[in-house]
């Protein structure tokens, strides 16, 4: 329940003394705000999953994922599950005011998150090479349009929902990693992010979608810089807890996507 020191931090933050009613859900504002955001975000994902199911019900759905894809996706799932564990450890450490441990656990979480993104990116690239792609993605040299039809069994909705859903989720994981980076390292995270951005941009060949998608990191860099400029403060246990809520939510979403998109489309 709400302990007295937390109770009115919302009002106290504005520098006005006085008594307030106890918050309705006994939580400080930032936490309430994050819960509300997650409620809304779950409807955003809910709508995408609805679109997916809607298409899936009305079409003979292909089941193209072979062993490698499933193994890969399982490892990705393991990464996310581990990252949730390290996130919990980070929150515990923050509550003990052990800031160096907090930072370490946060970094561990970020490493797992990044591993997830990289594995996912490789998976995408692999599938695109096999022919599962969207008309607008850059075509790898020598690929025929017919192969595209082959893997998706002539159901273009398959590729569309696959890339749509997973891209949205990948975006959330990326935002999460940046978010945790800012909480863990504050402004020192910005140059690191910059280096990752430039490195990734040059390392990924131009006929790969991620060559373009990587600009999301640049946007993240700018947004983080603005936020850090506006609120150049140390992040406390509350901030870690709130970022943890976000992170667990993103993991949870994957626990829907993994069975729905992958397991239900395993090659049979």
């Amino acid at each position, binding site marked *: 329940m709400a302990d007295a020191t937390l*109770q009115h931090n*919302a009002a106290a933050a504005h520098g006005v*003394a006085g008594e307030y009613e106890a918050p*309705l859900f006994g939580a400080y504002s930032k936490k*309430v705000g994050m819960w509300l955001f997650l409620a*809304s975000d779950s409807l955003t994902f809910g709508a995408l999953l609805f679109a997916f199911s809607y*298409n899936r019900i009305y079409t003979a759905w292909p089941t193209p994922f072979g062993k490698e894809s499933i193994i890969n996706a399982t490892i990705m799932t393991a990464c996310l599950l581990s990252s949730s564990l390290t996130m919990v450890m980070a929150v515990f450490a923050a509550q003990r005011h052990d800031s160096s441990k907090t930072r370490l656990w946060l970094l561990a979480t970020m490493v797992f998150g990044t591993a997830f993104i990289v594995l996912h990116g490789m998976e995408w690239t692999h599938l695109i090479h096999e022919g599962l792609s969207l008309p607008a993605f850059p075509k790898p040299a020598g690929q025929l349009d017919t192969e595209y039809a082959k893997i998706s069994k002539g159901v273009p909705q398959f590729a569309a929902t696959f890339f749509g859903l997973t891209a949205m989720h990948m975006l959330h994981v990326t935002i999460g990693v940046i978010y945790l980076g800012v909480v863990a390292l504050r402004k020192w995270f910005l140059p690191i992010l910059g280096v990752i951005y430039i490195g990734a941009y040059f390392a990924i060949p131009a006929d790969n979608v991620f060559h373009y998608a990587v600009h999301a990191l640049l946007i993240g860099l700018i947004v983080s810089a603005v936020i850090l400029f506006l609120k150049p403060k140390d992040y406390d246990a509350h901030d870690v807890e709130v970022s943890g809520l976000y992170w667990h939510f993103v993991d949870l979403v994957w626990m829907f996507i993994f069975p729905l998109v992958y397991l239900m489309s395993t090659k049979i």
Partner: protein
Amino acid sequence: MATSATAHAHAGPQGFIRKYIFSLDHKVIGIQYFFLALTAVFVGMFLSLLMRIHLIAPLASLPLVGEIKPETYLSLLTMHGTIMVFFVLTTAPQGGFGNYFLPIQIGAPDMAFPVLNMLSFWTTFVGFVVIIAAFFVQGGAPLHGWTGYPPLSAVQSAGPGEGLGADLWITSIAIFCLASLMGALNFLTTTLDMRAKGMTMMRMPLTVWSWFITAILGLLAFGVLLSAGILLLMDRNLGTSFYVPQIIVNGQIMLHKGGSPLLWQHLFWFFGHPEVYIAILPGMGVTSQILSTFSRKPIFGYKAMVYAMLAIGFFGFMVWGHHMFMSGMSPYSAFAFSLLTMCIGVPSAIKTFNWLGTMYKARIRFQTPMLYAIGFVSLFVSGGLSGPFLAQPVLDIQLHDTYFVVGHFHLIMGVAAIFGMFAATYYWFPKMFGRMMNESWGRIHFFITLIGTYAIFMPMHYLGMAGGTRRYSQYTEVAYLQKLMPIHQFMTYAAIITIAAQFIFVINLFWSMFKGPKASDNPWEATTLEWITATPPPHDNFGGVTPVVHNGPYEYGVPGAARDFVMQTDPPVASSGH
């Protein structure tokens, strides 16, 4: 607890930019929203004027725009609807008045997240610029109506305006979704966490309740529209086919294949129906507040009002299918949607009953805010009565996509919500700008607008029943509609007069802002917290103190009290009403 608050901690920011442009003060942000919506409403109104003129004289050459071609008519219609629904009906009542008065009415110094609040205004602003830009790009504004039904909206080559214009349209809506989400988050957290001592949930003014419930709806509905919009953008630009079946457009077979336009309709109306309540709920709140104040009586059935709004919000998410009776849905689903839709009639009727009960046997003060609040009730009833008709699948087969629907939603959502805004403006103007608005001009404005509104939208019901379809450009070319042309002419003349009358309002607004008589702190002798503070309120709303609340929000005519009203911060009295 924070006892060490220092005097300078809440001194306002200095410098023009931090004070008026990128302000973190919810009051300034509220006024920014208000003026954004005012600009938008004039743009939207101008478009409707062009449409009305075009409808009675399709071939006339108009000043400024020349002859309006059928496709131009469709762009006007799209932009009119979109601007009105998003940038007026969603922006002013919630972003404008809600932002200004929600923190004050609960006794808070500001919103919970001021930076987020500022961002949400500027994001809305960008959304507005983006949608206006659609007029000026190659091909012009899109044609697909405010509901954006695919395949028209999903295929670039489907018509002029469906290229870049449609991309800007959908981008603007996505931006608007983000802004509304930020706003909703802020409203909810503020209401949950920042109520002054004694301001229990059941002592909140009904305005606060209405903004709170609107924010819940916004939080849950805009996320869905955002997803739907992203998928539409993918269909348009990445070649996917979520919404597009295999079709032929302009004689060419599209590469799209296998999608379903109905998917969009489901997602859109899952947002769309709650959206109509997002537009109207704040108006209900303001009306309750004003009816009670000017009747000098407690609101009739405060708790019933709160539960009715919650019920409306709850059912609002389960009835989207009533917009899709004609889509070939199973009769069983149609029956379910129809039944659930009728259920919403019950809380709506409860509210109406309570409003009338509040006015019953009261010594009513007929000042402009009160007139507009009564006008709101009137429009809500006249517009609401056609709802249960439309909710019958059998009747809807005849009425769907006719002027009957246009009449229904303009009365109940369009103009009723606008009347709510007018009521709010006349009511809160003294607090916001420190001066009174002119009463006589206010009344003249009210009567012309009320009669004009009915003159424009009532005949539409008849037109619709007679088979007058909506979204047509040249009724003069349709034989069986020829006989109905006099009705169209009548509506156009009524529209011209009503639109002209709105200038009375604007002139009154700006004139009073500078020249009106100075307002006292509590000109309407009302009870809620905004009336205990200075006019206009200081930067932290209550000058460094936090009010302590002892009474409910509508303590009028309390037996034994010194005055006929008891402020929320006055010493406690035995509750008189509910």
